[in-house]
Structures are given as structure tokens and as C-alpha cells.
């Protein structure tokens, strides 16, 4: 199922368009980052997380909302698969399509390496962070996609949730007290800093894995509720 979904995304005009837009944005962000004349990429990775969130929202609509709109969901959900298998297949499919987009962006650090001498550590951890965030964002996107048969509602709903989570962390920097703590903990923004600096903090890895698990559970709940 995951393989079919990856092919379906990347062999469609929609998927290619979204992927091309993502890569173009990644290129623009690289150019902006390199204006500092330093061969470091943390200024590139940081906004790339937001762009990955948007791409996850756009790709994930294909998982359930598009299947419901076209009617193929009725055939798929009557296959002899457990709900867990169905959800896992869909999240793997969306995540796999995202990973292909991320893999293409490797060209960017390679180009920087040609003209400078960037530190490989933060690049490596940056990609680990992007992969973890990609899976977590895809998982949230799939949950929203399962809740609606509308392509637009799924795309805008996933984007809104992921951007709200992200900018909640930005907002938290200007706050104090318990609200600040909660917003900062819930936001992916607060959990990417370590990856950008070249460190792999267990708390950050656990955060993204937890977000992915929440997405899986939410998708299962939504599917059951909609039966």
C-alpha cells in the first residue's frame, strides 16, 4: 500500500508540482542562507522544517481524503487488513513520498561542500531531524485526511495544525510561566534546535516519535468513529 501511494504521489501532476515547489523553496532558502558568506546550513535547515510541514500536509491529503473523494476508500477499507495495518501503510506512503523529496535536497549541502567546508555533523543531524519531523508531520496530516473527504479541508486543516504547533513555539519565546512551558514543549520549533547544532537529544527524538504515535492513534480513532 505504501509503495502504491508513493508511486501515486510522485507519478501525478499534483505530486510533481508539490515536490517541485518544495525543491524550489529549498533552493531559494539555500541562496538566502549563503548570503552570509559562511559555509553553514543551520539557517537553511530551520525554515526547511516549516516547508516540510507544508509538504507533509499537501502529500497526506492523498492518503484518505483523496481516496474518499474518488470512492476507492470503500474498496480499500473492505480489504482484509487490520485498522493498524491500514493506518501504518498510509503513513508510510506519505512519509516515503516526503523522504524522496528530502533525498533530492541533499544536492544543496553537496553544492555547499563544493565551494566551502561545512561541518558535516549539523548537516547529518539536520537530516535526522527532518526525517523524524517528516514522519511526525505526515502522521498528523494523515489523521486530518482521515477525518474528511474534502481535499481542501484536509490540506488546509493539516497545514493549520502543523503551523499552529510550530508558531506556538515561536510565540512561547515571548511568554513566561506554565503557558510558555506547555507551548514550547508542544511545538516542534523548540525541538529542532539540537538537530541544527549537531546534537541528537533524546528528548527531541522522543518528541517527534510521540507526535507520530499521536497521529497514528488519532487516525485510528477517526477511522473507527467514521465507521
Amino acid at each position, binding site marked *: 500500500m505504501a509503495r502504491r501511494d508513493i508511486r501515486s504521489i510522485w507519478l501525478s501532476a499534483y505530486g510533481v508540482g508539490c515536490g517541485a515547489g518544495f525543491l524550489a523553496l529549498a533552493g531559494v532558502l539555500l541562496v538566502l542562507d549563503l548570503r552570509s558568506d559562511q559555509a553553514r546550513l543551520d539557517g537553511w535547515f530551520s525554515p526547511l522544517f516549516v516547508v516540510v510541514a507544508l509538504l507533509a500536509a499537501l502529500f497526506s491529503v492523498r492518503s484518505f481524503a483523496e481516496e474518499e473523494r474518488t470512492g*476507492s476508500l470503500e*474498496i480499500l477499507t*473492505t*480489504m*482484509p*487488513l487490520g485498522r493498524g495495518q491500514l493506518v501504518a501503510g498510509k503513513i508510510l506512503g506519505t512519509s516515503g513520498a516526503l523522504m524522496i523529496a528530502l533525498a533530492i535536497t541533499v544536492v544543496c549541502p553537496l553544492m555547499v561542500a563544493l565551494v566551502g567546508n561545512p561541518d558535516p555533523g549539523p548537516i547529518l543531524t539536520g537530516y535526522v531531524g527532518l526525517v523524524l519531523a517528516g514522519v511526525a508531520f505526515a502522521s498528523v496530516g494523515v489523521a486530518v485526511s482521515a477525518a474528511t473527504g474534502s481535499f481542501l479541508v484536509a490540506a488546509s486543516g493539516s497545514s493549520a495544525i502543523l503551523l499552529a504547533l510550530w508558531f506556538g513555539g515561536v510565540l512561547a519565546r515571548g511568554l513566561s510561566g506554565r503557558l510558555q512551558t506547555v507551548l514550547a514543549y508542544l511545538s516542534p520549533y523548540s525541538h529542532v534546535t539540537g538537530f541544527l547544532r549537531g546534537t541528537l537529544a533524546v528528548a527531541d527524538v522522543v518528541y517527534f516519535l510521540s507526535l507520530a504515535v499521536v497521529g497514528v492513534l488519532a487516525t485510528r480513532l477517526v477511522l473507527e468513529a467514521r465507521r
Partner: protein
Amino acid sequence: MSRGAEVELTGVTRRFGTRTAVEDVSLTVHPGEVLGLLGPNGAGKTTTMRMLVGFLRPDSGQIRVGAVDAAVDPVGVRRQIGYLPEVSSAYPEMTVLDFLGYCARLRRLPRPTRDVAIGRAMADAGLAGQGRVRIGTLSRGYRQRVGLAQALVHDPDVLVLDEPTAGLDPRQRVEVRDLVARLGRTRTVLLSSHLLSEVTDLCRRVAVLDNGRLVALEEVAVLAARAGSRLELRVSGSAPRAAQAVAGVAGVESVEVRGQVVVVTGDARLAGADLAAAVVSAGVGLEEMRAEGGSLEAAYLRLVKP
């Protein structure tokens, strides 16, 4: 030899918000039987089928396929069923072969038997030679066949077909009807259709749903006979006197005079000989008598409220 599994719905109810789509429906489909599911739009046919195949969950009641309870082992139930939805939508970007291969993998058909199973399903559904064609370029009739092929690919014991001939041209309709008749000899088939002639041809028994309730579960012949008969008597002389005479005959439900023709409808007890005797004994000549037997259509129209 019949190898279908018995399908049993017991007291199945499903609500959507405040609307009850299916209410307390109980029916059994026997192995090797094609059971027709009839009813007007919105009667609950598709909802009933969707509950059977696990797409929807009943609010109450029990669904059993073979020895498997759908509430206990929904995957086990789905494994036994091939389902053709009302709107059969496959993935338009895939070829027929790719799509059937995908379905076969999801149904965990062993790799060595997969190609044979796909070939058989394609042949049964009349898709031979269409394997490399993209589904999105097929006509509606052929897409319906693709849906039928995916329902057959795992050679299921039970087939649930929601209006399988909808959108097909007359030749395709006959082909699909023949296929269902052939499959129904060895499998359990639940078939919904708006075409009463199709149901009459394919099914020995029918279930009629109206407003979510099961209003009849009967053999087609019994249901049709129960719908009664209609006789037209052309008389010479006073038609009103003839009408008055036949009104008292056993089984007569209504009498209508149309010029020199007396139209009599009645139940299964209605006998032409009794009517003829009544007319003659009233001193009216009987020139011609034409009888129409009870039909599934007449039964359906009586059962289903407008």
C-alpha cells in the same frame, strides 16, 4: 458443489445522527444462493451491504459470515467476501493488471498463484486483453468490470454486489447477469438492483427494504403470487351488472368498469372460472377474458410506500 458461506444478519440497526438508515434487519443468505436486495433509493440497501463488508459498523445487531462473527473478527469476515461497491472506483492512474495485482497483494494471495488468480478474475469479468490499459481511460462499463474483477480476484465464498449492472449497456448487462448466475451456483451472493427483471432472473429469494425496515423476505414466486392477479373481462350487455356480479366472488379486491371491459384485481384465490360463472349467471355475455399473473413488480409496488 456449493462452497459458499452462510451470511446471517440479526437485528442489525444503523443510524446516521437522528436518521435511522437500517432498523432491526434480520436475514440469512444460504450457501449457493443469490439473494436479491430490493428497495427504493434511500431504503437502506447500500448501508446494509456496507455493514456486511465492514465499511460501516452496525449500532446494534450481529453479523456473521460462516462461523465468523464480524464484531469479533472483522478481518476474518472481510477475507471471505468479495465486494463490488455501488460506485466502483479504482485508481485511474493504474493499469488494470497493476490494480488487480495490488488488490491480490492486499488480500495476501501467495505469489505463485497470484497471476493465475488475476487472469481468472479478468476472464470472468470480461476483461481479457485489457490488462495494460489505464483504468482512467476505460469506459464506465469496463470500470465496473474492473470493480467486479477485484471482487473476484481472491475467489471469495461470498459476493456482495451493489448494483453490478448499473451503467452497463444491454449486452454487458446480459454478460454480467450470466456471470452472477454462474458464480451464484457455487457461492453465496447478495445482490442489490433496481432492475426487477434482473432479480427475477437471478434470485430465488428476495429481501425488500423500505425506509430501513425489512418488509419482505420471500421466494420471488411466492411474493409475486401473493401480489395477486389482474383479469380483464370483455362483456356484451351491461358491464355495470357484470361488475356487480363479480364483486362478490372470492378473492376479488377491486372492480373497475372501462366501457365494455371489467377490470378485476384480487389475491391468490382469484379464479377466472369463478368470475366467468358470475358474469354468465348475471345474464351478461362474456366475449373474452384476459389474465395477468402476479409479478414481482406488482409485489414490490405494494410493499414499498410511495
